[in-house]
């Protein structure tokens, strides 16, 4: 009996090139119930699913899409380690499911030739047969199967065609445990060098560990010989091994002497194998058929039309993110408000009510309001990705992004961040280079997201005169708003350049990228991806962001004691309440007294806020924010807005006696807040706090600061470490402080 048939759970690894429909096949096999996590220490996403195979639970591991199993970084090493059973967090792989794009077989089989060398039972899923057919290619599958010596199953993952046959082929491959031909694509000279190195390694391993450690698999020895980047040497070869490095060098020299230079020999040998395997398999039309995809590509990468379509597509996405999301956001806001009101009415006044209404509903609600925007953005991103336009966008924008040390692949993530940094940060997954990806993640929150808009609009409306410039063509208020967006863009460009020159320095990653054929996006995949990412956002809002909101609420509520309240405000309120109580329902005096009662309540709320831990913190940092032109109230509001920056206006509203529940989306509330700000005076000198430089300094601060717990949490999730969100918060806060300082100090001297 074969050992694998005894195990109750089987493990299958899904490997394939990007753009082969790998995630579609994964969903077709395992359904939408997928477990997504991270491999410790790297930024690679770990995706697991399961299905029933011959009565056995079969676990599928979706490995990141790659063109080659030639690890040059810890992230790339994950796939190889999973396949070779070298990871403790993934069960050893029983079989490999390799998906290949039938319309692009040559290049796809390169990866397969590496997979076959691992010596695992392998099944090939031949996907996109329809696209191959539209290109006029005829594939002799039986012949391919014979020449490769591996089961090949035709599938159309997006239509669930061939999935049952695929499962049957997997079952029999696991059952027989048959490893594939094992015929090495390399010339005998190379194989001899590998055998030699393997011997050297085995001998030294035995000596070192008394035979306890298992020898390095042949595939990794090959890689060691082929890897000129030095990554594998450092990873696989322990210290003090100069002699071994000498062995490696000698082997490479011998190979070069024999006419097989490393690393070119790998591609030569493998493409040679591909050529042999594919001989007489593909019948091509005599004339190359110009497909619809070709026509589309000519249009979409055209100098003028391509640019135009790109700009229009981005405009369409953005306008729908803002326009279509607006009613939904309003609805969510209304539901949350209603929920808060009902809850508030059913609870007696006290800390619990305040916690639930102001802390939990106020905090998490202010984040959840952005869910429609995030979902719509994810929807479009998923479409762009699935139809093949994402790669074209990177292609079109690459030259632009090279100037800031990034590549075209960073463009869409950064653009998305103008709506919300969360989908922006998550969209960086298309960037395979780690340094580029980190740089993009770190600067994405500098883009002015939609949560900054209320801050800008309130302050601009209140303090920037509505003056027309340049003969009425330009409007000062609009110009200021534009300048705020520009501040973020310029800061992002500078930070990206600095990061790429210092912390994330390294060779420019290659922009050698496939431009996949266009295809209709599959609605299922788009919806699954949107729901998946939307859910992970909601999940986080329900855990970490909730916890942060509760803690910040506690800081702004406690100790809930104030001498001022006890001595004057509370008695005054009680007196008013008693007078109102004594009046009958429609006494004319009511109309006069009720607003006064509300004002007294607001004054009490403000007094409590002042004496809360948060208020004390605000006052403690006043010396630090004074150079920005801020009094302690603004400092306090800035701290209170740590969970979400749009909270700052509401926090200012509380401080300025407007009570909780100020809605800066409403014009009347905006005007009330603006009036209070205009009247605010310094506690000590009695001078007005706000003027244009102060308003600008607040805006610049909020343009650059990292006051968004959700973004920081998403950065943690994507980088798999708290180090990067901590760094983001630190650098952005320093940048925001310096920016605000410069704005105020220069503004006051003009």
């Amino acid at each position, binding site marked *: 009996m074969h050992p694998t048939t005894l195990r109750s759970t089987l493990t299958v690894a899904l490997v394939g090139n990007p753009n082969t429909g790998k995630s579609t096949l994964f969903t077709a096999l395992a359904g939408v119930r997928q477990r997504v996590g991270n491999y410790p220490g790297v930024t690679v996403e770990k995706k697991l699913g399961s299905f029933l195979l011959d009565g056995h639970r079969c676990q599928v591991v979706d490995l990141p899409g790659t063109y080659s199993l030639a690890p040059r970084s810890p992230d790339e090493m994950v796939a190889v380690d999973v396949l070779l059973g070298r990871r403790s967090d993934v069960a050893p792989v029983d079989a490999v499911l390799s998906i290949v794009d039938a319309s692009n077989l040559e290049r796809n089989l390169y990866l397969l030739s590496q997979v076959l060398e691992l010596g695992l039972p392998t099944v090939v899923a031949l996907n996109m047969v329809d696209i191959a057919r539209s290109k006029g290619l005829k594939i002799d599958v039986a012949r391919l199967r014979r020449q490769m010596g591996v089961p090949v199953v035709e599938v159309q993952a997006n239509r669930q065609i061939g999935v049952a046959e695929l499962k049957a082929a997997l079952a029999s491959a696991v059952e027989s445990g048959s490893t594939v031909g094992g015929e090495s694509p390399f010339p005998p000279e190379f194989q001899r060098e590998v055998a030699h190195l393997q011997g050297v390694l085995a001998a030294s391993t035995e000596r070192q560990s008394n035979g306890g450690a298992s020898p390095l698999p042949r595939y990794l020895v090959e890689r060691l010989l082929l890897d000129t980047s030095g990554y594998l040497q450092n990873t696989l070869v322990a210290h003090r091994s100069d002699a071994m490095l000498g*062995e490696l060098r000698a082997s490479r020299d011998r190979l070069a002497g024999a006419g097989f230079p490393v690393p070119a020999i790998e591609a030569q040998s493998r493409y040679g194998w591909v050529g042999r395997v594919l001989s007489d398999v593909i019948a091509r039309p005599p004339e190359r058929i110009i497909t619809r995809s070709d026509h589309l590509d000519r249009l979409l990468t055209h100098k003028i039309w391509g640019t135009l379509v790109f700009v229009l597509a981005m405009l369409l996405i953005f306008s729908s993110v803002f326009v279509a999301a607006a009613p939904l956001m309003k609805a969510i806001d209304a539901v949350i408000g209603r929920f808060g009101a009902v809850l508030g009415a059913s609870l007696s006044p006290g800390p619990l009510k305040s916690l639930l209404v102001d802390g939990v509903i106020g905090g998490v609600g202010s984040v959840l309001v952005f869910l429609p925007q995030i979902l719509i953005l994810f929807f479009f991103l998923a479409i762009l990705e699935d139809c093949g336009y994402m790669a074209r966008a990177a292609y079109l924008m690459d030259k632009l992004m090279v100037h800031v040390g990034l590549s075209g692949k960073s463009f869409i993530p950064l653009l998305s961040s103008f709506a919300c940094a969360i989908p922006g940060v998550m969209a960086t997954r298309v960037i395979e280079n780690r340094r580029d990806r980190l740089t993009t993640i770190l600067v994405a929150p500098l883009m002015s997201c939609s949560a900054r808009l209320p801050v800008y609009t309130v302050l601009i409306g209140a303090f920037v005169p509505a003056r027309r410039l340049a003969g009425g063509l330009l409007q000062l208020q609009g110009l200021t708003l534009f300048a705020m967006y520009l501040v973020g863009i310029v800061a992002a460009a500078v930070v990206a350049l600095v990061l790429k020159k210092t912390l994330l320095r390294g060779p420019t990653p290659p922009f050698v990228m496939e431009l996949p054929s266009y295809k209709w996006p599959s609605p299922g995949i788009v919806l699954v991806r949107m729901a998946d990412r939307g859910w992970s956002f909601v999940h986080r809002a329900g855990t*970490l962001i909730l916890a942060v909101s509760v803690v910040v609420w506690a800081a702004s509520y406690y100790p809930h004691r104030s001498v001022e309240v006890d001595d004057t405000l509370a008695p005054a309120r009680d007196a008013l309440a008693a007078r109102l109580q004594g009046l009958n329902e429609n006494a004319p005096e009511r109309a006069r007294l009720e607003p006064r009662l509300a004002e007294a309540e607001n004054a009490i709320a403000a007094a409590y806020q002042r004496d809360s831990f948060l208020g004390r913190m605000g006052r403690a940092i006043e010396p630090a924010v004074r150079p920005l032109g801020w009094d302690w109230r603004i400092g306090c509001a800035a701290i209170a807005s740590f969970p979400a920056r749009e909270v700052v206006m509401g926090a200012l509203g509380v401080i300025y006696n407007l009570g909780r529940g100020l809605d800066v989306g409403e014009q009347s509330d905006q005007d009330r807040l603006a009036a209070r700000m205009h009247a605010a005076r310094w506690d000590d000198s009695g001078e007005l706090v706000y003027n244009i430089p102060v308003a600008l300094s607040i805006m610049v601060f909020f343009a650059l600061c990292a006051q968004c717990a959700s973004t920081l949490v998403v950065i943690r999730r994507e980088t798999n470490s708290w180090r990067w969100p901590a760094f983001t918060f630190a650098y952005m806060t320093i940048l925001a402080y310096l920016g605000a300082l410069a704005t105020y100090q220069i503004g006051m001297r003009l």
Partner: protein
Amino acid sequence: MNFDWQNLTVLVVVLSAGGYLARVAWQSVVRRQAAGCGSCGHCPTSSLAVEPRLVALQPISGGAPAVSQNGSQPEAAAK
């Protein structure tokens, strides 16, 4: 009277929220020391979660007298 139970509930909620945040932060400090080194492409941080099956490569090339400088081969000799 309801002041007391409200305060108590709130205290529990706030403490658990604080505790949760502290735990998450602490875990990330303890568990992921090696995580996120983006600055160096050559650092030998192994991505292996298992006790790394590294092999120390030592000179044993054909016939070379393996007089290693560290002299740490008694086990090998014993074999």
